[in-house]
């Protein structure tokens, strides 16, 4: 019990240290640059305490739940040797974690507004909603596709450089052909797909796979899934903008 309290207070201190820079930046700009009082100090204090406690809990749960389950599933899939089910799992994980992502829903709705303002689609509510959900499914599919490709890469030991460079070239080439309004959104869509729960899980999966397969180095082969998951939406969203 005593050891637990000690560990908890130590990780609380760690979270405090992680958050200190934000507090300093906000305080400096509020007091020195904008020269305004801190509004609603009491709420601020409560909120800050929640953030510290939340970060502490999250990191605890990460090591207890997300990392072990990601690693053990990777190990089991590798032991079972069923490529088909592993790829289905990767695809499902990619689509399932992305399609309901709140950040993506927000971006898709804004993208529909941009498209309507640019005259690409009708300005009506109906067509905007259709455009937004089409975009959402496109991004979700692209993340599923990216994880499948990334898992195949780990299994086969392909080197990541060439795949990423080809991806970059695709992005660059498509930039010249895609409608101008969609480019900013396409570039941003890569960043919004990878949520706080997906990242640890996918990382544990990749590293676990690379450690369970003979001849793979977890450092060189295990990382890289997130990179695919943030690159492929850009390509798919631009393609969506060109086709719709």
């Amino acid at each position: 019990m005593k050891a637990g309290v000690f560990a908890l207070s130590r990780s609380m201190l760690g979270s405090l240290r992680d958050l200190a820079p934000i507090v300093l930046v906000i305080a400096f700009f509020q007091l020195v640059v904008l020269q305004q009082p801190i509004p609603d100090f009491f709420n601020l204090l409560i909120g800050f305490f929640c953030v510290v406690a939340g970060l502490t809990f999250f990191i605890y749960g990460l090591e207890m739940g997300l990392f072990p389950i990601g690693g053990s599933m990777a190990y089991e899939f590798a032991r079972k040797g069923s490529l088909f089910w592993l790829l289905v799992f990767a695809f499902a994980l990619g689509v399932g974690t992305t399609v309901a992502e709140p950040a993506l829903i927000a971006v898709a709705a804004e993208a529909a507004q941009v498209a309507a303002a640019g005259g690409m689609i009708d300005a009506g509510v109906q067509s905007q909603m259709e455009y937004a959900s089409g975009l959402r499914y496109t991004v979700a599919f692209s993340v599923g596709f990216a994880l499948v490709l990334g898992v195949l890469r780990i299994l086969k030991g392909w080197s990541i450089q060439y795949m990423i460079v080809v991806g970059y070239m695709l992005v660059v080439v498509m930039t010249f052909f895609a409608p101008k309004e969609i480019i900013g959104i396409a570039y941003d869509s890569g960043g919004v797909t990878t949520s706080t729960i997906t990242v640890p899980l996918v990382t544990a999966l990749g590293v676990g796979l690379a450690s369970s397969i003979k001849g793979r180095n977890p450092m060189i082969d295990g990382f890289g899934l997130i990179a695919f998951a943030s690159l492929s939406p850009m390509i798919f969203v631009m393609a969506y903008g060109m086709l719709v």
Partner: protein
Amino acid sequence: MGFWEQFADITLSTIKDVIPIAIIIFGFQFCVIRRRITNLRKVLVGFVYVVIGLALFLLGLEKALFPIGRLMAEQLTDPDFIRSWSDSSVAVFHWSDYFWVYIFAFTIGASTTIAEPSLIAVAMKANEVSGGTIGVWGLRIAVAVGVAIGISLGTWRIVTGYPIYWFIIAGYIAVVIQTFFAPKMIVPLAYDSGGVTTSTVTVPLVAALGLGLAETVPGRSALIDGFGLIAFASLFPIITVMAYAQIAALRTKRNKIVD
């Protein structure tokens, strides 16, 4: 809305986010792998901790950080504020008049990245896998510097109005060149670090800054130019993480020569 109501609200929406993931994981575990999970209870408790932690984290951000951060982004991009620091008496601002915006972008980008939970997760894993060669703090600081450079450059782009793809393509070229020279071990991790930087903490604040700026600067449209900051924030960490490894490798080499 009361504190507890808000907490319940956010917890519910976090649970909603976790449910698809839980269904996929446990579905495959029971239907395909068909083996009992070792320490099932511990894993489940871990999931509960993750949900509670994330909900508290988001609630705290919503209560403390985002309102003041958004307000700040609005105030810093307000023409009256910019005029009060500007020497020029002309009506049209020079890009250098926005200097507080760039400084804010840099510092808020770096500090929010340090607190980004998914980056902490990846850094912990990288430290474990590399056997301690890659320090948790080294990686986090390298990524934070990358985000800081990316976002301040992104705000400068909104002010000057240069097309976004110039920067992205130039960044890609830098990444490709560095890939050939950086230690092999770091390359996949560096690529990954681009995607992990932008989740819960950074995106809302950065989006507010981009939108505020696009509304203030004449000739920019919030809808078109407000986007793109996140892309900057995910590209530049790749460059700085590889640079971090290159510098570390260089230093070891030099030490060896001295020995």
